[in-house]
């Protein structure tokens, strides 16, 4: 098996699709373009499942490694590898991406360009999850911005241009700090290899090398990398680009942004910041806990005030991702292996589950928009459940999944996070409960206004889901039940890794 570079295949298959669409898409019919995009987007899921089959869950290290010398003068190697964390996110990308394209089926304008940009985005995101050398990791990281920018700007809503610029400039600015940080790291250590740097950090060699450049460098590099990641997740209060970007993007792009791209930041925290700068993170953790709590509580309460449904789901994303960061910072702040294992498992599971539930909710809002000619106000509907019971049922599953109802996927992750955080910082867990309550409040209000009550003006003519829409939402619903009842099928992929992390806490 070592002969087949399966990880490279995972990363570049969508790009091949993008290339084909860009070159030959013009000559194809609209449905053929969409089908071509879907096939190449679906390649990720197929390959990810192959990898799951060959993956050895008991091993905590990188598997399926690929390493080639690239720029020898800079000691840059093309290096890919995969552990439980990467596999989880590759799997998530494989599930969510084709469904994003399904949700974009109704886009009529320049379908081949849309498909090509989307596949470009998908490949770049996969590159982030698999690259093990900062050089091309950062290339992939920044490359996601280009297609995302055009997807938002060209296919987005009325405020799309402004939102797209804000998104790109904000994220680029964060990325610049990170680049500076890594430049300093390179100067100090002469390598950009994650595994090598992690080893250095674990043996305590990294901080002295950085300190040799000057006393403030260890902190400065930490802050730089931190800023880049914090904007990406986003960590409160670096989140202001998010609501407008998510709200103005076309449905498929919103789904991908929240489902996959928001995980890149958390991935960076877990892969880079925490292993490389454990001491600095530990020192900053008490403050960072407050920021994560701010995201949990204020995100949920701000969502309550939104009348634009996409902005509401966007704020709920801030709330959900803040749980991940809350758990991570709690782990960094205290040493207690059992609770840490629980919190970290919860973080990983929450990333996966939020990817499903938030993407599904955006798909549902997209369906409402398609029915009403672009309306997506909280008060623009009413009684949708009467005219479209199937849609109401599937959207209800997504809503309750997002709300953390037991039996659906969201619960287990949140429970693990809360139980871990309670062991590490009890007061933080107690305050975060407010977020749970507020989430229930705004989601049920959304449900009440849109789906319940008398049939609203304009809603009476709504039809229930068509076949493409059923095929978009049904997989989400099935997976929500599946992972809610049998979380072990996901947990088994990363549990040994998490156990190792928890056991080697600094």
């Amino acid at each position, binding site marked *: 098996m070592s002969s087949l570079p399966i990880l490279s295949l995972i990363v570049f298959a969508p790009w091949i699709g993008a290339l084909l669409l860009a070159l030959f898409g013009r000559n194809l019919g609209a449905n053929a373009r969409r089908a071509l995009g879907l096939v190449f987007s679906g390649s990720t899921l197929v390959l990810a499942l192959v990898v799951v089959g060959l993956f050895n869950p008991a091993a905590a290290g990188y598997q399926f490694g690929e390493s080639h010398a690239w720029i020898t003068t800079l000691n840059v190697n093309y290096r890919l590898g995969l552990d439980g964390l990467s596999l989880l996110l590759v799997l998530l990308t494989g599930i969510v991406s084709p469904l994003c394209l399904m949700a974009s089926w109704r886009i009529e304008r320049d379908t081949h360009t849309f498909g090509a940009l989307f596949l470009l985005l998908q490949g770049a995101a996969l590159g982030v999850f698999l690259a093990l050398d900062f050089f091309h990791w950062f290339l992939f990281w920044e490359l996601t911005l280009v297609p995302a920018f055009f997807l938002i700007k060209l296919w987005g809503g009325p405020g799309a241009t402004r939102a797209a610029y804000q998104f790109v400039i*904000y994220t680029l600015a964060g990325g610049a700090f990170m680049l500076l940080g890594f430049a300093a790291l390179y100067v100090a250590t002469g390598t950009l290899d994650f595994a090598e740097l992690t080893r250095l950090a674990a043996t305590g060699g990294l901080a002295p090398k950085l300190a040799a450049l000057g006393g403030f460098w260890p902190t400065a590099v930490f802050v730089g990398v931190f800023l880049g990641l914090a904007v990406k997740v986003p960590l*409160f*209060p670096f*989140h*202001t*680009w998010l*609501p407008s970007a998510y709200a103005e993007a076309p449905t498929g792009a919103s789904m991908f942004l929240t489902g996959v791209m928001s995980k890149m930041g958390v991935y960076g925290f877990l892969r880079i910041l925490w292993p490389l700068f454990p001491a600095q993170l530990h020192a900053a953790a008490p403050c960072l806990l407050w920021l994560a709590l701010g995201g949990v*509580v*204020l*995100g949920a*309460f*701000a969502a*309550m*005030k*939104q009348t634009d449904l996409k902005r509401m789901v966007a704020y709920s994303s801030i709330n959900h991702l803040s749980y991940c960061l809350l758990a991570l910072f709690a782990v960094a702040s205290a040493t207690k*292996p*059992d*609770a*840490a*294992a*629980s919190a970290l*498992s919860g973080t990983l599971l929450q990333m996966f589950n939020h990817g499903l539930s938030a993407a599904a909710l955006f798909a549902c809002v997209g369906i409402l928009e398609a029915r009403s000619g672009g309306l997506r106000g909280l008060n623009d509907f009413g*009684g949708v*459940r*009467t005219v479209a019971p199937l849609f109401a049922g599937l959207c209800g599953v997504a809503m*309750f999944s997002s709300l953390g*109802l*037991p*039996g659906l996927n969201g*619960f*287990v992750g949140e429970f*693990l996070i809360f*139980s871990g955080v*309670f*062991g590490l910082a*009890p007061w933080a*867990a*107690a305050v975060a*409960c407010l977020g*749970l*309550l*507020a989430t*229930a*409040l705004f989601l*049920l*209000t959304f*449900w*009440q206004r849109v*789906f*319940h*009550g*008398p049939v609203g003006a304009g809603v009476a003519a709504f039809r229930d889901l068509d076949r493409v829409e059923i095929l978009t939402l049904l997989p989400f619903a099935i997976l929500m039940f599946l992972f809610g009842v049998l*979380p*072990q099928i996901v*947990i*088994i992929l990363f*549990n040994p890794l*998490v*156990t190792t992390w*928890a056991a080697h806490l600094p």
Partner: protein
Amino acid sequence: MYFPASHLWIIPALPLVAAAIGALVPRSGRALASGAAIASMVAAFFVSCLALHTALADPAAHAAHNFAWFDVGSGAMRLGWLLDPLTAFMCVMVTFVSSLIFIFSLGYMKEDANFKQFFCFLSLFAAAMLGLLVANSLLLLFICWELVGLASYLLIGFWFHKPSAAAAAKKAFITTRIGDLGFLIGLLWLYDSTGSLLFFDGGHGVLEAATLTALTGKTLVCCGLTVSTAIGLLIFCGAVGKSGQFPLHVWLPDAMEGPTPVSALIHAATMVAAGVFLIARVYPLMSADQVLANVPLHALTVVAFIGAITALLGACIAVAQNDIKRILAFSTVSQLGYMMLALGVGSWTAAIFHLLTHAFFKALLFLGAGSVIHAAHHEQDIRRLGGLGAKMKITFATFAIGMMALSGVPFLFSGFWSKEGILHAAHEWDVSHLPLYAGLAAVVLTAFYMTRLMAETFFGKSRSHESGHAHENSAVMTVPLVLLAACAILLSLLAWPSPWLQHQLDPSAHSEPGGISLMVLSIVLVAVGIGSGWAIYGRKPRATEASPDPLETAAPDIIAALAARLGFDELYAATVGRLNSGFASLADFMERWIWGGAVTLLARFGEFTGVVNRETDENTLNGGFDSVSHQIRGTGRAYSRAQTGDAHGYMRFIALGFVVLMLFVMLGGSR
């Protein structure tokens, strides 16, 4: 026949399958959905009876079967099933009452377009409720606890096109979730301090002696409470929400927006009693601090007082309600208060006995109310009913039995015995007699408001067109009433002549028969309640719907306040609601102006820098550069004038240059 605990999952799985069938069949599959639901429930009843048979063979054994759900780090999160008399009695009750209510619904919901969905939701509820009962893990119990909440939400809002139903469903979910957050924190705390959530686990479970001793051994620095007290009180928060206890009782009366079978099953007999069951289940934990004398507070003391307040409050408010279902709803609140009171004063077996008897007679009363409402074309206001006793004889007779059981009419009715057990336990409690007095006051009120309800509904003359044309319902609705009425009487046998049930639930407890004087007192109080109710409402029945209520004329302010439910909803809207929306506005404001503002400020600063930069470039740096280039350009232009393209002209200049050069060389050479 022996029934192993490892097979207990069958009981909740049966209705779960029925729910799946109900969800998947098309809307026209009414017979299949309802048939599957009823068949699964009857089957679950027989399995539960088997389980009860096994459990009673050895009542003190807590037969548990545990299994791993998923891995966490090097350990695993384990769940399990538990078979003991408490679980088994509850399962038998729930499956029996559910079966009858399902059958009743066949008639009640016949005309509803979403008939099959109704049975799907009912089955989902039954599955979650039974899962809650058989759980051997606080986590599994919590999961099912949330799922019964979901079923309750779906069924309260079953007529979702009515805004009031949609609002009531949301209110129920949110209010109970407030309590559930306390429950969740308690659960997390318990897990953190014991490393397990299993009730019984071969000596390591959270309800077993070793763990409890460890928990009572730890004391909180801040307030001197033991950890077990704090955890117990947090778990109790969940019970307060679910069981409609003061101060979270406000959702339960609104939940009457759901179809009446739902009110009977979920909001009277089973789900709302889940809070009582929860406290009974974790009773060893709740009472662990009783062995300590020098703690500031015992968890059960709080339970007793909350229960007493709720019992009295619910009974008071019920007196002034006019909606037949609201009266019963507040009665449920009050009766649940009794159960909590019993738990608090130390007799969990009395609480469970009352839970069981109450489930039968309150389901009977709600179904009777349903029968009335169905016959009277959805008229629910008792002022507009009247004279139904002659028209609906079976409903009248069975409702009367239910009413007497609830009021505690002596000897023949099960409610008398179970209430007696609670009052006796309250009398024995050595902390305070206030709960006893509250309980006794509620006895009078209960008898009074039930007599009022009977008199207004079934006696006198019909006071509206709807009730005038009412007639008895079909057998599918009356047979469940008759069976439940029979149970309301026969359950007396569980307590008389000997307290058999309580002994089975807790073989270790030695219960001596209650004092005769207390029994006589409560009988007198029941007589007072019924007598005064009859004197005020029965002897001279109301003539028209508009005629004044005698109590209202006597004490208008008090009745108005009670009719308005003492303003709890308004109070909460003005405090919690206002606070909540204020906080949301604050969060939104900070989004727009502080965090957003900071970014805008940064962007403006960037823009400003850009402008400054450009101005500097244009006017200072570029100024010099520009003038130099200007000169260069001028020179260039001058030179370019020489480029005429005329070959002769070029030749001339070349010749001239040649001459000048020659002269220069020659002159220079001569020098």
